[in-house]
């Protein structure tokens, strides 16, 4: 396997064309600051400038580092999620300490605990109330799969809502949950804005009010 390195000596010397372009950019920037750049030149400058792409990345970085989780503790995993908020495994280091009580203001739902048959429609309704972009983490074995209890009473979260990250464990250590949240953060920083129906090829799962005669649409 050969390794190609860009030589330091090569990078240090710029070609003549690069120098001319650089000087032109410099003078345009100076004119922009003086207010003397207008019309086509101005638009060209803005289009060429590096700021647009950096703004994208900055937005993604900000979105990834300011997740508002929803307080949705169901069972034992909720206690470990609470200790994630505690001082030892501080979720505030990653900007996630602002746990909201209402789904309207949050963008991450951490399903911490077992989802029973009675609770599943409630979870789904809460998830629907969240605004996009929204993410879901299934924490623990019970919400990811059936977990320890493979019986009539519970349902894995994948059956009724799309889940981005599954964290195994019963209950997962706070470090494990942290790792899952960091994975989610990386996912967000790659692409936060794609709607989840595209993400999960879930077109056709929209809920519509039932028709007049009570039949579901």
């Amino acid at each position: 396997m050969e390794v190609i390195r860009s030589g330091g000596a090569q990078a240090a010397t710029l070609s003549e064309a690069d120098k001319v372009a650089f000087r032109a950019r410099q003078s345009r920037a100076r004119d922009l600051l003086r207010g003397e750049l207008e019309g086509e030149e101005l638009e060209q400058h803005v289009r060429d400038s590096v700021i647009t792409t950096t703004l994208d990345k900055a937005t993604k970085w900000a979105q990834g580092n300011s997740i508002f989780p929803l307080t949705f503790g169901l069972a034992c995993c909720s206690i470990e999620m609470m200790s994630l908020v505690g001082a030892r495994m501080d979720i505030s280091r990653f900007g996630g300490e602002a746990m909201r009580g209402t789904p309207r203001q949050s963008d991450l739902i951490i399903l911490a605990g077992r989802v029973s048959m009675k609770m599943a429609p409630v979870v789904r309704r809460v998830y629907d109330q969240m605004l996009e972009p929204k993410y879901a983490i299934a924490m623990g074995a019970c919400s990811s799969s059936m977990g320890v209890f493979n019986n009539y009473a519970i349902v894995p979260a994948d059956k009724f809502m799309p889940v981005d990250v599954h964290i195994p464990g019963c209950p997962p250590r706070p470090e494990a949950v942290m790792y899952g949240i960091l994975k989610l953060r990386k996912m967000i920083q790659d692409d936060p804005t794609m709607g989840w129906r595209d993400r999960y090829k879930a077109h056709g799962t929209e809920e519509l009010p039932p028709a007049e005669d009570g039949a579901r649409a």
Partner: protein
Amino acid sequence: MSDETPKPGGDPAAPAAGEAAGPSHREQDAPATAGERQAAPDIADLLGGEPGGPLTAVADPPADQSGPSAYRVQEQSIDFSAQLRQVATRDDAELLTINMGPHHPATHGVLRLLTTLEGEVVRDVKPIVGYLHTGIEKTAEDKAYWKAIPVIERMDYLAYYFNAMAYVGAVEDLLEVEVPKRAQYLRVIHLELNRIMSHLVWLGTTMLDLGAISIFWYAFRERETILDLFEYSSGQRMHTRYFQIGGVAEDIPAGWEQSLRRFLVEMPKRIDQYDAMLKRNEIVLRRLRHVGVLSAEQLQAWGVTGPLLRAAGVPWDLRKAMPSSSYEDFDFQIPVGTEGDNYDRYLVRVAEMRQSLRIIEQAIDGLPEGPWITEDRKVALPPRHELATSMEALIHHFKLVTEGMRVPAGEAYHAIEGPRGELGCFVRSDGSSKPARVHVRDPSFVNLQAFGDMARGEYIADMIATLACLDPLLGGIDR
């Protein structure tokens, strides 16, 4: 409101076995109307004397969909007109029924409260549970006796050692197997550590509900220390599968005792810290004093046990009255309150934490040498080194791992004192290697029934505080 805080304990009110322990010597006269310690403000005065119209009970939110959907079926099946008691104070009072939960930041889990309000005063509360039902009891019927221990541990998810202890105790009653003394002491140490941990989480979340948010972090700091001890002895922070039938799974490792002693030295100072912040705090006093009062007779009619009953003045604690697992070897007190309000419940639980520290210290000082699990090879796995030399050990190991132990037919009910009250486990065996019925009598399930009486007549904010001091744990309620 006097500044005098009642002495929570200090009287060795523990009855020795054989003495009368009942509430006869503590005739607690209930206030005639529990919960009306202050007259609820007259709504008419607030409204300027205008009547609010005919009695209306808004049962369901207005349906914005034309037909019933699956979500609505559950709500409409509760028939309010028949079940709503006439709780209004005036003919023209306007009652509003709102739904708190199951997803609610203040309901300590997925509890749904149908609250009927008249203004800000709660007139009726109907708790609806079942949102966490996991079928644990039926799952346990499917597994061998010792493989059901992890399943049952996950019931009351803050008191996992207690769940395991109740179940293991019932099976040991059926097997009539004797638990070695060292195992009993280790069990007591872990149970009391779990009690402290459960009370710490209670303290943190209760103060979170009241608004003293920083206590949450202090309490969880201590909880991390205790979970470190659990991880040290068993490998897991929660749901440790440490208690086995016949003893404990493993002996404590080297160095555990030193960590525990360090914890025992630090913890009383930390509890003093909490007291310094909360005990004389005016806001805590105003929010918890004289709130949520229910007399001892009413509590006993509802079957309530645990810190709630002790705060009402009844010194009933199964660790003293009907001790199991060597609790009779230890000298400790039972904190008992006087009034039965939320503040007494708070004081009782904090004092219980201190008493638990005493128990742990005596247990670790007096820890006897010996085996940590029963020597009966039909019940407990033989140690690994024996498998190489002894044929019987190999056969026993094989039988235990594949089929499990056979328990003679019969039924047993074993009750212990959990952090919330009496935690009992009923096991029925039909002679095979799997239990035929496991039922756990969970204290939160029973205590929740008293909540309606406690909250009636209170403001809705007081109802939240009462719910917090009731310490419901939905995992145990729903199983």
